[in-house]
């Protein structure tokens, strides 16, 4: 009988040990919704409003309850998201202010007036390429052929090739489109700073040179690609000189001046 007795003892220790508390996903106690225990809530929770926490229990102690009544929902919902005070621009964010209107005439104005402030060099070229492949490639495709992963999956209609329908889009127009969106493309202004948008504009304009342009990784390769087509550049500049903004506005009204098939 002694052997059974010791067997029982061993068994219960084993079973109870296995049943004891553990946060491991294989444990009996594992509850994916349970965040566990805190040891010092006063040190855990922030006095200032934290944007990503929404502690909605008002009965919690003062350091724990963390939700502003002055939020975007006027206290109706508990959230800490706040839009900037109307009519103000945060320090250092002046370039977020974009004076062109979100319509066709605004886009045409931007196309005429805006000049890409970022000088093209090896670093900006690759940075633009990297940002493009983070923020644009799932629709526009890594190659700029309008055949990204979402287009291939049939989720989003193709925006077209950069070296096809969108070949002649000016820098300012591309910047306007990234800022406001166009057609089904949404505004990416909340995701990209103006500087990042200009870097992407650079890269998009490189891809306008042809189907192989996406392979470029340095300035020397870019110059080699654009060398035969150099005669085009002065032509474009002369057009810009002769056409005044008023004329552009008229042209926009008579619609046929509009760039075809843009997204």
């Amino acid at each position, binding site marked *: 009988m002694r052997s059974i007795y010791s067997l029982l*003892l061993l068994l219960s220790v084993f079973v109870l040990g296995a049943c004891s508390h553990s946060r491991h996903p294989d444990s009996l106690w594992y509850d994916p919704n349970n965040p*566990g225990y805190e040891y010092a809530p006063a040190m855990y929770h922030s006095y200032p409003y934290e*944007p990503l926490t929404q502690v909605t229990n008002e009965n919690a102690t003062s350091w724990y309850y963390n939700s502003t009544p002055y939020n975007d929902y006027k206290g109706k919902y508990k959230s800490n998201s706040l839009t900037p005070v109307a009519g103000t621009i945060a320090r250092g964010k002046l370039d977020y202010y974009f004076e062109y209107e979100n319509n066709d005439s605004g886009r045409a104005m931007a196309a005429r007036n805006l000049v890409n402030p970022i000088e093209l060099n090896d670093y900006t070229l690759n940075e633009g390429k990297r940002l493009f492949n983070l923020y644009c490639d799932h629709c526009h495709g890594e190659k700029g052929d309008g055949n990204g992963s979402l287009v291939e999956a049939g989720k989003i209609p*193709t925006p077209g090739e950069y070296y096809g329908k969108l070949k002649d889009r000016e820098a300012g127009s591309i910047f306007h489109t990234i800022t406001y969106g166009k057609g089904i493309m949404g505004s990416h202004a909340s*995701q990209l700073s103006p500087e990042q948008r200009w870097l992407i504009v650079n890269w998009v304009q490189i891809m306008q040179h042809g189907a192989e342009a996406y392979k470029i990784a340095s300035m020397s390769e870019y110059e080699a690609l654009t060398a035969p087509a150099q005669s085009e550049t002065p032509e474009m500049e002369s057009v810009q000189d002769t056409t005044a903004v008023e004329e552009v506005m008229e042209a926009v009204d008579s619609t046929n001046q509009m760039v075809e098939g843009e997204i």
Partner: protein
Amino acid sequence: MNRLLSVSSSLLIAIILLLGHPVKAADAANGEKLFKANCGACHILGRPMTGPNLVGVSSRWEDKELLHTWIKNPGKAKATGDPYITQLLAEWEPKSGLMAAQAVSDAEIDDILAYIDNWAPPAPVQDQTTADTQGEGGVTYDENIMILSVILLILVLVLGLVLTIRARISKIIAAQEGLPDAEKPGPIKVLIDELKDFVVNQMNPTLLVLTVGGILSIFLVIDLYNRAQDLGLQQGYAPDQPIKFSHKLHAGQYGIDCQYCHTGVEKSKNANIPSSNICMNCHTVVQSGPKYGTEEISKIYAAIGYDATTGNYTGETKPVEWVRIHNLPDHVYFSHKQHVVAGNLDCENCHGNVREMEVVEQVSLLEMGWCINCHRETEVVIDNNYYQEHFHQVFEDDYAKYLEKNPDKKDEVKLGDFIKNHKKYTVSDMGGLECQRCHY
């Protein structure tokens, strides 16, 4: 003969197709291609998008000539002052502008119209998903309980078996020794008798109390130890979210980069949870998902105040109350920007393979030892101006120590060579273990 057969069969198929469809099948197929290439950017069949819903367009336009003119040159068609066009423009021009002229021929327009007329809405996906969605969250939990109870059951059965066999054997021994043959009781009765005998005759009450108390205290100690170990740690936390957003689908299957939505990761302390406007970059078009149909996507629309039938924003918004998973205490300062930009770390380093997660789970421990370990092990790329300028003294001191130990190497190993090839500089050498680096 074969050729004749194939020709006649293909003829037959062609006739069947012609009889079956009022419009030639080839036309509609070509029209689909043309529609996707030329119209798909602004029009989607079945609902309005940037432009109006085109289903039934040929029945709405009385003058087919004018429709062709409109598609090829909207400016010219507008100039005719047709009342239907005026009405259309009054509705659409303010928000979408005038349609762009399309470079298509009359025959191609007919193909496109044939495609639109033949188009039928796809079957809703909701039905096949319900079976899938049930019991999603708690699978591991339920399975664990099941497995454990099966094991327990087996153990109890084995115990009963052992006791029964033992009773049988003792009975046989009793018979062999010529003792009177007891009446044969059932196995359960034998088991109960054995246990009764065990508890009443062989069990010492003190021993019993000690045993039960011992087992309980062993359990308590293990349990308390485990709880203390997990105090303040959230590893394995995988809460249900208000919207069943699947990273496996978005980041895994569709290959959308983490930063597309978590834009702050290179710019600020937080990697930020995207606000609903970023969802809308795709979900104005994609209104139904493969698993939950429109159920989950409509929650985004409710949050941002979007009317999917008209494509307008109502202006009535409310927050999506995402449940925060990764949460460092307020007394620790952690910046994503520094780790991603300067440290050049991938998201997977700390967050695990989120691309495979249906529900996001905290993979890393996020305790201090975990941070410190990485700071001790991660090598720093010192070959740049910042470190040459600010850590020059550290490099020189180390070099002097090295020369003290190896005086003969003075000409062989120079300072530049030393820091590159003879010593590994980790984050801890650059002050990565100082308390106030993170606690301030």
